[in-house]
């Protein structure tokens, strides 16, 4: 890994601020006057000479098409910190030099941050390779860092390699994953200034190697050994923390990972060390610089607002798996438990933090148990990284876009495009204007062809434009450099430019080829190559790299369009983005007309083809053929014919056949996905509640099962029966509570929300009950809706699932039926059943049975007395017997029924208990897991309640009859 330090003041680094200027030979004067102007500025105080050099260079602005080059000033200043000041002075309009009049100057590339500037100028890419020639560097004797070798080199002697061929290799990066455990006080989330760190588990892996280099757990007090891991026991916390700090320095990891280390583990350790006055602790980086912390906020359209802690650790990348998942995956829950279940298929024992102190205060065996738990939390992030190939994908993305890897998890999309744009611009001697952000301009988005809603039992072919927006930009040469300004057309011949459907003008590629099309061509070419290589490659690790690469390339190509449309961006250009979408809209319409005209009875086909739906870059065509094969063939033919009508490289491809196909609405459909004639690949659902996170899992599961029954088994009748059964289960309290849990993210505190929201109100209430376990900002809050009185607002009825389970609180069946199940179910079943769907599904005979649960939490519960009812006929009994005088003749039968049920519960309980013991990897210890993302946990708690109730009933029988 290359650690680049930028020594200030020696002038080895370049800082270019370029201004447009028409005069010549004014450099020296300009330099002197600019230096004078800077004298009074605060930022310039520590510099004797601020402006090092001013030179004139022949360049071109990249915005608008123009012929020939013009002279620009290139200003080199002593430190990157001076750049914004210089920019302000020049743009404010108060600056004058020599005899030239005072005027406002436009600056170019003055808003580019130093790291990007440096990397662009040297051609260095993130995670790339460099080489230094002998004689061009000096080995430093008095080292200023902990690196083994330290060299000084002039920036222009750095040889950087493009990540191709042999330079595609990934170095043996050392990755350290760690997790800490803290001894929290009862009911309070651990606070660094009060609560001890009791264990730190560390696992190190070399990237690409299957085995771990070491597993070591630092523990406080004696802890029994764990096979395969080293346990280091300490009497004093300070000693442990000091040793951990040296572990980081000695093992010298390139990458630090873990789960939520950026916002929890690292800040906690830092604050704890500060509280214990450990002066030697905060030196975790590769230089001798002290490690410091700060708060950062990051806001972007794609990722929303996030508040983060940021710890500066020179030379180490902090690669927090939680942050990666936040960015890349849309999940119901981001807890390590649910994530590891989802991606690794493994439930994880979850020890509540109030229980941790208990285990720590026990003996060496309970501490061993904690150490196993802690160690697992350190291993899981590594396994997740490996499984999701995060690291490889991010490395490839860094190489493709040229930004440092850390930017990918901390910054937005724009910086990636800027880096590429600057690199290309440099080759062509173009300059990027430092534009002021202008207000939001709206332009029409993509188009959809109105869907013809129905359940299609014939195959439907889907044709889509591959990389639609990039290919439009390439085909029509849409770019900043080809854009014609209002008056520019007069100088050109009409055949030299085009008019886009949105009414903008661009020159054609033979006049000047745009930068963006060139970038896109290279990206797509590289992607094709990566995909071809991927097919040839045998080695699984290299295969992963290539797959990561082609994905990164695809994403980069797509983000170029977004960059031109980002109204709050570095260089927004509505003319480009508006033209792109306008072309897209026009093309979808053309495809529809063409296909319907060509594939018709008039032209010798058996049926008239119908385009039943189209969205952005795809159209669904119903050819009215019976088999998948015919549909595929016609689809391929249509794609070929249409492609011939569009300019290169726009390409319509046959993508898949849906058979059958349930088209519910815009962006809502489901179908069986075929790419070959005889076997379907998968069931594909879009916009249907199987994935939405603000629904309970019951909805997702129910919809999923129904779709399977409808699409795969082709038995809608069975699907209807299944829905009825589930609704009946819901009414009789037979549905697992874990299926009813809804989660919402707590993004703002109570005061910030204008309307009261269920999860926010609940979070407040939970805080009153137990501040320690209550959700905090940024957490996803799980809740269920409980039965309330008439007219009670929904937000008052949200309750913590565990609390509901423990107190046997009745859930609001009506809410789940009307607010959760009704709409998604009717959407699916209306195309199939028509108007009677609602009546049949929600009001049939199956809704006549229900169970009313007796809560333990209501205000009257403590006063109420239960009268037993007959097990046979439910009539009220005077005493405690099991059945009434009328049902006594059936007593044997009823008893056996109850005993049978008791046995079922017992068996269920044993199975669940064993499963939990297996999960905690210890078969002779009590289960203490309270993992709220685990369905088993809820089931286990519920079955205990059921068992108690059944045993009581059996007791009543035994009282009544002496067998």
């Amino acid at each position: 890994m290359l650690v680049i330090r930028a020594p200030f003041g020696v002038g080895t680094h370049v800082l270019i601020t370029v201004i447009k200027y028409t005069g010549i030979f004014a450099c020296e004067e300009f330099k002197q006057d600019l230096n004078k102007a800077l004298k009074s500025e605060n930022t310039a105080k520590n510099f004797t000479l601020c402006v090092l050099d001013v030179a004139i260079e022949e360049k071109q602005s990249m915005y608008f098409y123009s012929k020939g080059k013009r002279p620009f000033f290139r200003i080199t200043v002593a430190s990157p910190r001076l750049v914004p000041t210089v920019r302000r002075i020049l743009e404010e309009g108060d600056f004058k030099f020599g005899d030239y009049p005072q005027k406002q100057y436009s600056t170019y590339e003055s808003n580019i941050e130093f790291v990007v500037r440096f990397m662009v100028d040297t051609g260095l890419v993130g995670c790339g390779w460099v080489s230094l020639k002998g004689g061009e560097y000096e080995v430093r004797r008095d080292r200023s860092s902990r690196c083994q070798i330290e060299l000084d080199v002039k920036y222009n002697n750095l040889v950087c390699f493009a990540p191709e061929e042999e330079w595609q290799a990934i170095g043996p990066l050392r990755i350290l994953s760690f997790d800490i455990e803290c001894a929290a006080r009862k009911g309070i989330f651990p606070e660094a200034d009060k609560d001890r760190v009791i264990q730190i588990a560390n696992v190190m892996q070399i990237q690409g190697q299957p085995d771990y280099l070491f597993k070591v757990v630092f523990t406080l007090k004696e802890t029994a050994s764990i096979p395969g891991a080293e346990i280091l026991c300490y009497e004093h916390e300070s000693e442990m923390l000091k040793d951990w700090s040296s572990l980081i320095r000695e093992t010298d990891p390139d990458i630090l990972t873990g789960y939520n280390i950026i916002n929890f583990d690292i800040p906690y350790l830092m604050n704890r060390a500060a509280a214990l006055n450990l002066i030697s602790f905060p030196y975790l980086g590769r230089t001798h610089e002290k490690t410091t912390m700060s708060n950062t906020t990051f806001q972007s359209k794609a990722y929303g607002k996030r508040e983060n802690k940021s710890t500066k650790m020179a030379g180490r990348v902090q690669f927090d798996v939680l942050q990666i998942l936040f960015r890349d995956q849309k999940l119901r829950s981001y807890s390590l438990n649910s994530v590891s279940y989802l991606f690794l298929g493994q439930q994880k024992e979850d020890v509540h933090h109030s229980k941790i102190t208990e285990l720590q205060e026990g003996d060496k065996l309970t501490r061993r148990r904690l150490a196993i738990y802690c160690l697992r939390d350190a291993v899981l992030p590594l396994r997740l990284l490996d499984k999701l190939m995060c690291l490889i994908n991010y490395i490839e993305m860094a190489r493709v876009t040229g930004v440092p890897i850390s930017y990918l998890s901390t910054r937005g999309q724009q910086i990636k495009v800027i880096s590429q744009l600057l690199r290309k611009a440099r080759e062509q001697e173009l300059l990027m204007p430092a534009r002021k952000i202008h207000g939001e301009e709206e332009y029409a988005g993509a188009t959809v062809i109105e869907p013809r809603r129905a359940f299609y039992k014939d195959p439907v072919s889907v044709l889509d434009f591959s990389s639609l927006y990039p290919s439009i930009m390439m085909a029509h040469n849409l770019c900043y450099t080809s854009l014609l300004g209002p008056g520019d057309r007069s100088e050109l011949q009409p055949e030299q430019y085009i008019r886009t459907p949105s009414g903008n003008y661009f020159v054609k590629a033979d006049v000047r080829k745009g930068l963006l099309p060139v970038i896109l061509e290279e990206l797509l070419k590289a992607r094709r190559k990566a995909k071809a290589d991927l097919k040839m490659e045998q080695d699984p690790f290299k295969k992963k790299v290539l797959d990561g690469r082609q994905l990164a390339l695809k994403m980069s190509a797509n983000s170029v369009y977004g960059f031109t449309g980002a109204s709050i961006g570095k260089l927004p250009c509505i003319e480009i983005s508006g033209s792109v979408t306008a072309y897209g809209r026009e093309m979808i319409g053309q495809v529809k007309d063409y296909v319907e005209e060509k594939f018709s009875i008039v032209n010798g086909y058996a049926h008239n083809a119908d385009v039943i739906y189209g969205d952005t870059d795809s159209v669904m065509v119903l050819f009215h053929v019976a088999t998948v094969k015919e549909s595929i063939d016609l689809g391929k033919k249509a794609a070929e014919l249409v492609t011939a009508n569009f300019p290169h490289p726009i390409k319509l491809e046959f993508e898949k056949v849906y058979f059958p196909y349930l088209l519910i609405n815009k962006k809502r459909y489901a179908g069986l996905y075929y790419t070959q004639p005889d076997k379907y690949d998968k069931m594909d659902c879009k916009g249907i509640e199987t994935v939405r996170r603000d629904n309970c899992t019951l909805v997702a599961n129910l919809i999923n099962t129904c779709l399977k029954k409808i699409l795969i088994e082709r038995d809608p009748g069975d699907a209807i029966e299944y829905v009825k059964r589930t609704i009946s289960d819901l009414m009789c309290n037979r549905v697992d509570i874990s299926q009813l849990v809804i989660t919402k993210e707590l993004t703002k505190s109570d005061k910030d929300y204008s309307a009261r929201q269920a999860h926010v109100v609940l979070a407040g209430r939970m805080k009153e009950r137990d501040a320690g376990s209550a959700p905090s900002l940024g957490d996803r809050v799980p809740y269920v809706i409980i039965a309330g009185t008439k007219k009670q607002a929904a937000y008052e009825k949200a309750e913590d699932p565990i609390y509901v389970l423990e107190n046997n609180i009745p859930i609001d069946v009506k809410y789940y039926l009307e607010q959760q199940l009704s709409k998604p179910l009717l959407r699916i079943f209306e195309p199939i059943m028509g108007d009677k769907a609602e009546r049949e599904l929600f009001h049939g005979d199956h809704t006549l049975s229900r169970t009313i649960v007796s809560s333990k939490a209501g205000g009257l519960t403590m006063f109420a007395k239960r009268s037993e009812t007959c097990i046979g006929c439910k009539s009220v009994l005077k005493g405690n017997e099991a059945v009434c005088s009328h049902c006594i003749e059936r007593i044997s039968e009823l008893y056996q029924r109850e005993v049978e049920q008791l046995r079922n519960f017992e068996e269920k309980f044993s199975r669940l208990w064993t499963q939990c013991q297996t999960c905690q990897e210890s078969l002779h210890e009590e289960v203490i897991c309270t993992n709220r993302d685990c369905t088993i946990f809820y089931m286990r708690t519920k079955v205990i309640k059921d068992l108690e109730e059944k045993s009581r009933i059996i007791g009543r029988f035994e009282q009544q009859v002496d067998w």
Partner: protein
Amino acid sequence: MFEARLLNGSLWKKIIESIKDVVEDANWECSGSGISLQGMDSSHVALVSLHLKSDAFDPYRCDRNISLGLSSTNLSKILKCSSNDDSVIIRTSEASDNVSFIFESSNSEKVSQFDLKLMNIDSEHLGIPDMEYDSIVKMPSNEFQRICRDLSLLGESVQIACTKDGVQFTSSGSIGSGKISLRPNITAENLDDTVNIELNEAVLLTFALRYLNFFTKATSLAPRVILSFKTEHPLVVEYQIQDIGYLKFYLAPKIEDDDTKQTTTPD
């Protein structure tokens, strides 16, 4: 076989209307002594206890104890089809999964029959045992209804104080506060208009007005209402239905920890 005929059919209508806001699905227990119903509201804050003696019906036949699972909403819908002076017969047989409601006009010219599907409701049978109360207030039922309605304009709960001087209802909210005091008045011309307080011990309790307003829908059933209080115990709001039975509502007191907290389920 179960059959019960009530001459004054409009009574059924009134009863259902007064309980349907509190209990939705409930088992109606029919036995030799009459028809009764006990049910809690779903948040377990209020309880309804209804009993109608078998003498109230003519004829009344109940071969064995049975329990009829019915939804109050559907019951209310069906009963709305009867005219006020109709007699109502409720009839079901053991094997049937329906219960029939037969409405007969007073001149026997029109007979309508509605069958309602029985529900299978699995619930615990809960009741509040009788106890000694600290204070019992008897007052005109429409007066009580009025007080609850007026105070609910101001706040969500009412504080009720019974002393030897009288009974005081207080409520406050964001727009202001209200206080209504009643003095014992045993000299009123009409016996139904008197306010009568039996006091063993002074009490001060707070209740959710939302529920009291549900209860006072029973006002048309009886001219008088009996309120029984005991410190830290549920309030009883009782309506005597002529001499044929009673309708009692129980309401858990609100625990005063925070004035602004409006949740009815104490945590």
